[in-house]
């Protein structure tokens, strides 16, 4: 306890004391026998076999602890070719082929998204990478889907609609599902471990034909029009998520596994705070992300650091395909993502518990619904990131509220201003009215779309001078939503509220 005359202790020394260096003479901390090959955390040296056991155990424990993946469920593995997702695919492959007691019990598929057009790669490079990807996927043996990012230009607006949420599986539901699955296996007589594999080796379930040149040009135009690398990275992530979601829904997958590692999620958490997405941290960095309703995104690699992943991949020859990304060779201050990555990694090198501390903090984030959300199961959702909008439209005290009120003012003021402008070229006199409407509708569309975004997405869209290059499904859905909202408002007074005691009394 503080005392009146107590002096503060001397300030801590500037440099942290050097951590005790584990030497080669040391033995593995686990089995106490083997020669250590890798140091994990602060000073724990593991031999090759114990490291492998620890790595696999982490993966299985992460899946087992959360009990979200039911036996026999179809799970889509999002594979980018990079080390973390390659490791994840490898773990699933090994997990499925183990002896029956410990075998993983879901049905996997793999999806690969070719983002070459957004990164400015030449068609020859992309074809070369695609050939390498196909070779690896054929070796793995799961049903696979290779899609190009350009296909977002053919997505239907239904991608952005949140399906009815299934109730989260309870403990009892999971146990009974496992029991019935085991009984089924028993009834079948004997185990058939390779059945799913033979089915899969028939080849790819869907191999999209090469995207058309118009689609590629449209994608390049979109990404070239974005002013900052930060907004480009966020847009890329959004489009990629929508595409993977579409593939999952089209082929009946109810779960998507992504290979986000501990390091990446720690960086993502801090980056999202800087981007204004603090309200959605639990969904963006947690183990499970149920914002899409019918498809749940799961992150089984979130306990593995990038160092562990790289070591495992090297020691056990896990195949991966290296592709340059949108931020390859970008300087440190090119985007918020890069800056945060450099910050966290530099901090980690001096204070080795940085990343684990951020990770443990992210574990404590709870997805608490708002109290009045019970009335409407799904309130309005952001058009792009599909998170529940935490918007209080009457709120003018915050920056967010000020932006919202400014937008609705813009919507009201544009029609009279544009009515006086001359019609564009090629307009008939009789269609003058319609043409004016097109001109002011562009500003309308912009305001319309921005109104339906959360704060973080809105900030990103500021770096797009015009929303025209966006894929049509986004613009169509924005229009649908605002029309629906307008219609709701029109008939609001005619709707009979269920819980209106005065109305009931009047009727009685």
């Amino acid at each position: 306890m503080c005392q009146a005359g107590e002096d503060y202790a001397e300030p801590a020394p500037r440099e942290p004391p050097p951590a005790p260096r584990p030497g080669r003479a040391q033995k593995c901390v686990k089995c106490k026998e083997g020669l250590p090959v890798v140091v994990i955390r602060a000073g724990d040296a593991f031999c090759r076999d114990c490291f492998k056991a620890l790595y696999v155990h982490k993966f299985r424990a992460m899946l087992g602890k959360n009990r979200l993946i039911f036996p026999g469920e179809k799970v889509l593995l999002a594979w980018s070719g990079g080390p973390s997702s390659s490791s994840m695919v490898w773990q699933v492959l090994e997990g499925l082929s183990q002896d029956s007691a410990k075998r993983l019990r879901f049905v996997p598929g793999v999806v690969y998204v070719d983002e070459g057009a957004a990164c400015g790669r030449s068609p020859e490079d992309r074809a070369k990478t695609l050939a390498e990807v196909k070779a690896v996927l054929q070796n793995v043996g799961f049903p696979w889907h290779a899609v190009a990012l350009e296909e977002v230009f053919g997505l239907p607006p239904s991608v952005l609609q949140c399906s009815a949420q299934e109730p989260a599986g309870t403990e009892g539901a999971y146990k009974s599902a496992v029991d019935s699955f085991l009984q089924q296996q028993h009834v079948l007589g004997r185990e058939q471990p390779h059945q799913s594999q033979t089915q899969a080796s028939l080849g790819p379930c869907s191999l999209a034909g090469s995207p058309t040149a118009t689609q590629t040009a449209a994608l390049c135009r979109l990404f070239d029009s974005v002013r900052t690398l930060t907004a480009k990275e966020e847009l890329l992530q959004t489009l990629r998520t929508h595409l993977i979601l579409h593939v999952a829904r089209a082929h009946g997958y109810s779960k998507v596994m992504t290979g986000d590692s501990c390091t990446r999620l720690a960086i993502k958490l801090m980056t999202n705070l800087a981007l204004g997405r603090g309200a959605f941290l639990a969904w963006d960095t947690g183990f499970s992300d149920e914002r899409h309703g019918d498809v749940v995104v799961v992150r089984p690699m979130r306990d593995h650091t990038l160092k562990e992943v790289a070591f495992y991949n090297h020691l056990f020859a896990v195949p991966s395909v290296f592709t340059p990304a949108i931020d390859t060779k970008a300087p440190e201050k090119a985007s918020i993502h890069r800056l945060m990555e450099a910050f966290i990694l530099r901090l980690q090198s001096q204070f080795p518990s940085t990343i684990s501390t951020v990770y443990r903090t992210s574990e404590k984030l709870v997805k608490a619904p708002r109290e009045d959300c019970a009335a409407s199961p799904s309130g309005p959702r952001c058009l792009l990131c599909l998170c529940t909008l935490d918007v209080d439209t009457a709120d003018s005290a915050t920056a967010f509220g000020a932006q919202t009120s400014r937008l609705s003012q813009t919507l009201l003021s544009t029609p009279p201003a544009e009515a006086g402008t001359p019609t564009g070229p090629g307009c008939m006199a009789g269609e003058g009215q319609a043409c004016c409407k097109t001109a002011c509708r562009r500003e309308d569309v912009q305001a319309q779309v921005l109104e339906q975004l959360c704060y973080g997405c809105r900030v990103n869209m500021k770096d797009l001078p015009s929303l025209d290059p966006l894929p049509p499904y986004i613009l169509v859905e924005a229009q649908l939503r605002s029309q629906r909202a307008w219609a709701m408002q029109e008939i609001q007074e005619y709707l009979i509220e269920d819980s209106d005691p005065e109305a009931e009394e009047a009727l009685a």
Partner: protein
Amino acid sequence: MAAPLSVEVEFGGGAELLFDGVKKHQVTLPGQEEPWDIRNLLIWIKKNLLKERPELFIQGDSVRPGILVLINDADWELLGELDYQLQDQDSVLFISTLHGG
């Protein structure tokens, strides 16, 4: 006084992009006054092998945070990091973890 050494330097995980895409380099380090430790090896790599953007590979006198160093398939933290004395026919592998997921 250090005798000339023959070592294999390998790059992975995307680091090879800074070295013209070449992953494996068999190098012969010339004899010199100072002993060949990793610190001096990095200086040598920067001068002779690194083709572009040195700040993406080297920071100060060590590698950039996020780049792993394996010496003969073992973590360099077990071998003294920058102070490890290179021996003939050693294999040093630099893996960049900053790429992809």
